[in-house]
């Protein structure tokens, strides 16, 4: 799996619940319907996001239920990575487990505006704004976690 990810930025606020990414009320709908409700708290994300786009979010991204669909739904939409000021721990674990690159980055919401082009170097925990310039670094992850993502998920490392 490619450890350099780039894509167009969608911005999200603080405390984005895992439920907003996999709403209980849409859980039983077919995927083509369900996906219209993903991150329904954003005015146009569900309607306009494209495979290859990325998310930049505020603090505590993915708090709430342990539902892994929150991470897998983003991956199914083709979201390339999530860079957030901070993550709720279950979402962070789920993302690593299913090989969705995630990076904790203080100041990320100031570094990017919606529509900017972002480049993430997951292995080195470095993110760049290709539209406006500027870059930032986050805490490095241990090799074991990077290997899980490289392998394509924790089940692949069994």
């Amino acid at each position, binding site marked *: 799996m490619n450890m350099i990810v780039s894509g167009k930025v969608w911005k999200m606020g603080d405390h984005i619940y895992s439920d907003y990414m996999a709403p209980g*009320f849409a859980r039983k709908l077919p995927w083509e319907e369900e996906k219209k409700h993903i991150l329904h708290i954003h005015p146009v994300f569900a309607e306009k996001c494209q495979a290859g786009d990325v998310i930049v979010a505020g603090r505590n991204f993915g708090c709430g239920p342990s539902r892994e669909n929150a991470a897998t739904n983003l991956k199914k939409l083709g979201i390339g990575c999530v860079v957030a000021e901070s993550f709720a721990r279950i979402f962070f674990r789920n993302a690593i487990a299913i090989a969705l690159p995630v990076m904790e980055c203080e100041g990320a919401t100031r570094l990017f505006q919606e529509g900017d082009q972002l480049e993430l170097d997951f292995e080195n925990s470095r993110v760049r704004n290709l539209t406006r310039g500027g870059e930032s670094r986050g805490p490095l992850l241990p090799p074991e976690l990077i290997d899980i993502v490289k392998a394509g998920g924790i089940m692949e490392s069994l």
Partner: protein
Amino acid sequence: MGMTMAEKVLARASGKRVVRPGDYVTARIDLLMANDLGFPKIYDAITQRGITKVWDQKKVVVVMDHSVPAPSIKGAENHQKIRDGVGALKIKNFYEVGMGIEHQVLIEHGHILPGRLVVGGDSHTTAHGALGAAATGIGATEVAYAMVKGSLWFRVPATIKFILKGVMPKGVSSKDIVLKIAGQYTIEVGQYKSIEFLGPAAAALSLEERINVSNMGVELGTKFAFFEADHKTLDYLKGRTDQPLEPFGPDPDARYESTYEMDVTSLEPQVACPHSLNNVKPVSEVGDVPVQQAYLGSCTDAQAEDLERAAAILKGRRVHPGTRMLVIPASREIYLRLVKSGAVQTFLEAGAMLGVTGCGPCGGQNPGVLAPGETVISGANRNFEGRMGSPKSFIYLGSPETVAASAIEGRIADPRKYVR
């Protein structure tokens, strides 16, 4: 330098003498839990790789609680698949539809012991910290991995402690403590951390009251939410397990990232207003909020003591005609206690409905959900948009006492006037 409860458990489970916050370790799991929502995916993830055995049949527990009893043919097929899968993997601990909510069932059946490392495919697994276990939620793929390997990576969390002091006033209960903490210190106070609830007022809480606090730990962002395992914990567990039992707590010289003190003596009933647990107010400041539904039933607020206290408020009174009240005890054992005590009769005479034990409408997936524009006062744990039905409905969270008082008045009400 000593260790906190989280550090002690993760050091033991990873075969190290000492661990410190920020360390990454691979730790052996003592108990792994899955429910009907996650198990089909977990089973597929395992068997698609040709694996037919779990790492330890006795350390895996599966509970049917989220979507029960089967709400549709598809749901029934799902249950069938789970029963077949549990049989094929020879999992020893399987709790059928009607036994209760996973966290309650695990505690009642002696699976949770002080100082053990417990992971479960449900965020409210933090509940087991009430018994001194290091317990936390993970997603389905990690449950599948742990079911095969028996181990997982962990980042050793920093620990914060809340020293609870004073004496709880009448009509106020442990739910109010945790709501107050969320409101005052925010839902990030425990993010990626372990919390220890210590001090005389923590020791004075009953085991059930402690479970309510630890259960809500995840709403404060925590990985673990511990109480010390003391004589109350051990008394509860006697007769429920044949394992040796010992008290468990932090080392006296353990190091904490921060310490908070809270005097509960002047605590008022607290209400979390829509749509966040950051939005907590004392009940006296909530204003006039009519409620179409009052709900008691989830892993947070439907233990025997919770429902007994609610029943005491409803005794001899009626649920308001503009409000429907739904009560769902958290387990069969609790249901039986409430039948014997007369609380079930009290609820029915007051005009409340009683549901089948399980997770109920708390997660928006069973009967009892809300229409657009409706408001519920709920004893459960989450109040964001769409959690319990329509994204255009409103969820207020309070203690079992506040829910009962509000059911009587048809609007959010202070329970203290009903408690003698």
